[in-house]
């Protein structure tokens, strides 16, 4: 019986105008665009400097900022109002004010004050921009201090320098954090939501009723809906792995087999979840909205954008029901750290429990007859 049902599903999938293309093109499109647009390294911060000093020091500082590579110097002005106009009309993100006797007070009084103002409408850009700018100024400050010490022939005061070393992602490339997340989202969509929508559309067309008056076994029916999308999901995953390697030279440090094993359990959990929704939704519209709600919740709880440890305690507890949470951890671990199976045993258990839970619920809630 399964043979005939699978034959039908595969034919329908392949004849669909949209889906097969989607599965091939989507990984390429999303992997070539998404890591770049979701990068948390901010470049091209538009900067204006209010330079009331016009001294060699202020020039040197501006040069140093320009050469850091993070900033676009939009304007150098002496006029504060001008800077405010620029920030209000969103032509700059941040401005730096150098006071009138910047150089002379540095030399005579050994101190001066600068002001950084940032447009915090885009909080991320404001925060990072301020940090980058402070770092450049600190650097500049150090240069000056050292040159003073030389001039006055004093021995340098001991300072300490902190050099961070980013284990497993030495260059701290945000792409390497994003790609695993993208793989997960893609699998969630292909394996969780396509079968759910497929079943709901059969409900809408009335064909599911026709199947329900046949002696079709409900496990077989559900399997016939899932298997094609599992196959497709793994094809999409493989394309993603390939594209990530091709475009970003990013390949798992750990074992590919582990990657596929965990993905398989994840896919099982997601498709079970999709089936639960399809059993309760009566129209595609309902299904789409329910899915939308849960995907957002799952994504926010997954630690994809913000670390789960930052969340309030209740949210941390809630995050255990998000299958995305485990698989994102796993894929990052396999890709960056090369963790082995037993290092990720907790995630494996978490995913397995969710897979079991959602699929049991799905089978129990599927009814060949209505009340």
């Amino acid at each position, binding site marked *: 019986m399964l043979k005939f049902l699978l034959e039908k599903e595969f034919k329908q999938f392949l004849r669909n105008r949209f889906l097969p293309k989607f599965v091939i093109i989507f990984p390429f499109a999303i992997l070539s665009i998404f890591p770049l647009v979701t990068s948390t390294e901010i470049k091209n911060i538009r900067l204006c400097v209010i330079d009331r000093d016009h001294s060699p020091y202020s020039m040197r500082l501006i040069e140093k900022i320009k050469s850091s590579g993070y900033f676009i110097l939009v304007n150098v002005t002496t006029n504060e109002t001008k800077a405010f106009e620029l920030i209000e009309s969103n032509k700059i993100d941040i401005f730096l004010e150098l006071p009138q006797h910047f150089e002379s007070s540095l030399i005579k009084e050994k101190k001066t004050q600068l002001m950084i103002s940032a447009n915090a409408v885009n909080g991320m850009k404001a925060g990072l921009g301020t940090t980058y700018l402070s770092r450049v100024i600190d650097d500049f400050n150090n240069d000056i201090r050292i040159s003073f010490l030389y001039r006055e022939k004093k021995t340098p005061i001991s300072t300490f320098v902190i050099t961070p070393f980013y284990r497993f992602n030495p260059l701290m490339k945000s792409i390497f954090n994003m790609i695993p997340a993208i793989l997960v989202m893609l699998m969630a969509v292909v394996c969780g939501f396509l079968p759910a929508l497929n079943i709901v559309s059969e409900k809408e067309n009335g064909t599911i009723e026709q199947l329900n008056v046949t002696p079709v076994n409900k496990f077989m029916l559900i399997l016939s809906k899932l298997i094609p999308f599992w196959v497709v999901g793994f094809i999409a995953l493989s394309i993603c792995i390939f594209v990530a390697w091709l475009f970003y030279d990013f390949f798992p440090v750990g074992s590919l087999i582990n990657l596929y094993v965990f993905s398989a359990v994840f896919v099982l959990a997601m498709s079970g979840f999709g089936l639960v929704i399809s059993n309760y939704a009566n129209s595609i519209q309902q299904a789409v909205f329910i899915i939308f709600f849960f995907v957002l919740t799952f994504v926010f709880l997954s630690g994809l954008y913000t670390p789960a440890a930052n969340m309030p305690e209740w949210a941390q507890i809630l995050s255990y029901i998000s299958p995305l949470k485990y698989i994102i951890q796993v894929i990052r671990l396999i890709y960056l750290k090369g963790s082995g199976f037993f290092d990720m045993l907790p995630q494996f258990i978490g995913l397995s429990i969710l897979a079991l839970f959602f699929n049991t619920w799905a089978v129990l809630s599927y009814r*060949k007859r*209505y009340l």
Partner: protein
Amino acid sequence: MNSTAYNYQNDISIRTEGLTKRFGNFTAVDNITFHVKKGEIFGFLGANGAGKTTAIKMLCGLSKPTSGIAMVAGYDVATQAEHIKKNIGYMSQKFALYDDLKVWENMRLYAGIYGMKEKIIAYRINEILMQLGFENEKNTFVKTLPIGWKQKLAFSISIIHQPEIVFLDEPTGGVDPAARRQFWELIYATAEKGITVFVTTHYMDEAEYCNRICMLVDGKIVALDSPKKLKDTFSAQNIDKVFRLLARNTNRT
């Protein structure tokens, strides 16, 4: 059990007693009792909302009765729905075919679900295509077929496994009179093979084609007999008149 009673039982394909379906306070099917003989064309007549579809869904095992008994093909609707499903065919008002599958693929799918063997499936597909005069449409996608053809195809698929009983829920909705006549010829041919045909309709002229008809008003049976006897009893020229007399006091339409 004496032998006549046994035979009587054996000749019955559907039997209901006090079959009732309630949705909250609304009683869709109200205490209906009837039986259908083997090989009979049994018409279920009523206005929209009279409870025809609800009744047929209970008999097919798609919906659970609130109370009452229904035996279909010898199995109890309440407890043996999956056994019933092996022995019946069902065609819904929507002709639920797969638009993106070809004519033969639609047939093959259902034949396969009913557990037919590959060789028999191939044979049955060709047989049906010949019967319908569809030989050239074997590889046509169902979405491109005209509605009258879809209807015939849906019907043929519902009896592809040669069930004991076939349930047709308003099968002639939305097709022209010529197509309806052709469709009834198909129904006759099916009944001649010994398949019981249980058909619901709101076209009163179609009722004349049935062996016996059962009229449903507000979920209750108001008349049950052969078309001829009904016309005699109510001294009406046609079934439509009979129905108007009986349905005068309806609440739902």
